[in-house]
């Protein structure tokens, strides 16, 4: 068999490296499984690189990967700013890539590059559901905390839009930095505002801090997070306090799909020291889509790109994947999760949905 190289790029060092390493392991898992498949035409090799979640480093490694003609395609980027900075590079070099974690809409919609695909949904989809869902449950008064990265700011923007549309009221908006430790000043102000729901647009680390400090100050509001906190680390980091936190993520709930359960079983089999984290399944899916395309079209960037462009209704562990005219996966479904008894549980199956427990207690 010929060896074909595909690339993985994500943050392997720095503050969000847990996600990057989880994604890397997931993509690696896909490659290993493919290499065990006797029917596969090629032997695959994953070239992993670290973008540090920094745009300039991203451009550097993207150039390195894209200018290496032995690499056929890439599973790229968790951080939106990095993805934004590298799409031009991929376009210039004609390297087909599939974004596996960055959620900013502009990555796919801001250009018309045939090279750039995305398996995960954008923050638009997520927030539409998030806003409708809780206003539907009868909540009225919100406070928004978001981190000032593109992720948090984007979430704030879309959530605010959808929330006002759905009749929710925003009492206050607080931007916090991603490395902030202390939120008591903001939270005291929030306590004074007496919201019913605290919406948090940001990632696990500060999500944990904010939730803990809410408790310290005795704030008893519903904690509504985004995809950024849907991680085991969130539950582990909070213990009992995680109970009743909400999170939303694009795609079908892979825990409930047969492929998803298989994924996690095989992941555990490989004994990776770190968890796949929330976006691991997307990286896994992206790697598989790419390898399938190579199987179909051969190791040729242009041909692989053409196959990827036309991906429609492909069954994956995150549900059906179909790309629209901007090669953005049209995510049919947003999954809602609630933390219950130390686990993320799909809302519909939870005691909360059944009315046996109440949020924000």
């Amino acid at each position: 068999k010929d060896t074909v190289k595909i690339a993985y790029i994500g943050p392997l060092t720095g503050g969000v490296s847990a996600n990057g390493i989880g994604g890397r392991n997931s993509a690696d898992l896909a490659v290993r499984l493919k290499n065990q498949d006797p029917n596969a035409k090629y032997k695959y090799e994953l070239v992993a690189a670290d973008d540090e979640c920094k745009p300039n480093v991203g451009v550097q490694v993207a150039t390195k990967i894209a200018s290496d003609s032995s690499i056929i395609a890439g599973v790229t980027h968790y951080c939106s700013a990095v993805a934004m900075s590298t799409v031009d590079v991929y376009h210039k070099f004609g390297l087909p890539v599939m974004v596996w974690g960055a959620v900013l809409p502009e990555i796919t919609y801001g250009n018309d590059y045939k090279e750039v695909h995305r398996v995960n949904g954008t923050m638009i989809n997520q927030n539409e559901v998030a806003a409708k869902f809780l206003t539907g449950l009868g909540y009225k008064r919100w406070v928004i905390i978001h981190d000032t990265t593109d992720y948090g700011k984007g979430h704030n923007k879309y959530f605010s839009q959808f929330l006002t549309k759905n009749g929710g009221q925003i009492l206050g908006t607080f931007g916090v930095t991603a490395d902030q430790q202390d939120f008591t000043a903001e939270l005291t102000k929030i306590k004074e505002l007496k919201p019913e729901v605290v919406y948090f647009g940001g990632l696990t680390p500060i999500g944990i801090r904010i939730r803990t400090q809410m408790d310290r100050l005795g704030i008893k509001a519903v904690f509504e997070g985004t995809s950024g906190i849907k991680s085991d680390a969130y539950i582990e980091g909070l213990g009992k306090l995680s109970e009743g936190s909400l999170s939303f993520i694009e795609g079908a709930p892979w825990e409930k799909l047969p492929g998803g359960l298989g994924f996690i079983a095989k992941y555990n089999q490989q004994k990776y020291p770190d968890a796949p984290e929330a976006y691991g399944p997307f990286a896994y899916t992206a790697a598989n889509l790419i390898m399938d395309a190579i199987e179909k079209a051969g190791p040729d960037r242009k041909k692989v790109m053409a196959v990827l462009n036309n991906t429609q209704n492909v069954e994956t562990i995150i549900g059906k994947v179909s790309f629209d005219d901007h090669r953005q996966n049209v995510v049919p479904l947003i999954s809602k999760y609630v933390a219950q008894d130390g686990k993320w549980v799909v809302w519909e199956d939870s005691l909360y949905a059944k009315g046996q427990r109440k949020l924000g207690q």
Partner: protein
Amino acid sequence: MPFDIFLQYLLNGLMLGVIYAIVAVGFTLYFGVLDVIKFSHGDILMVGAFAGLTTYIGIAGTFESPWLQLLVLVFISLSVAAFLGAVIARYLILPLQKAPPINTLLVTLMLGLALREMVRLFYPNGSNPKPFPRLLPTDGIALGEFTLRSDSLILLATGIITIIAVQRLITKSKIGLAIRAVAQDSETARIMGINFHQIVLITFMLGSALAALAGLMNGLYYNEVNFSMGLLLGVIGFSAAVVGGLGNFYGAIVGGFLFAALQTVGAVLFPAIMPSVPSAYKDVFAFTMIIIIMGLKPTGLISEKSSERV
């Protein structure tokens, strides 16, 4: 602003301030001996916190009383940090003694990076935040919107007592005298019979233990620790030490509380006064104020007494 809310802000500010101040005291200590910014201070703090956490996991179930657990945890964490401090002094600081002092900055910077990366990579699941045990009693009183829990009080008292103790140690004790002598003129200090190497080692052990204590306090207060917690705390601690006035422990306290106040004001009051400015500008506000203060008081709030003459 309602009084209860105001009290809450005050308490928040005090807690934050005392943690900053302890970090700042560590910097003050190092400025003394090395005359250089020790950029790994924050990371030692983090290592101290993780050492405490590990100890807790290790002794889980061995002791009934949380107080006893706490004692063991503090003891081990401080010892680990002190040992680490001694190793750093011996193998990184003393060998560079003859090089320009700023080179120590680079070494400690790299050391901090290495420590951070080691925890991230080798501590089990180290890149994610860890819950820190609640070992202090959490009962408290509520006064309207104001909640005062006893753990806050204990931490506040510990912090202030520690700072005063260090201050006394440095200004009143023999060892403190030796530390200052080494700082000002290491050669002459030796001529006075002071064991230079030993003093550098002791200073580093003391400073590192202090960092570990700050790390533990941080963990006990926020009930969460993570591998990058030292980064920002380090920068803020440094800022507090400098803005307060170097070489002065009261300066560290003043700087610590000032910084906490700036952040609180920046996050809440400032946007309230100027509604067009969102709270996200708080750091911009705090650091702008720092620059302005430095312009007005170039040697810190509690000015260093000038000993320079011609």
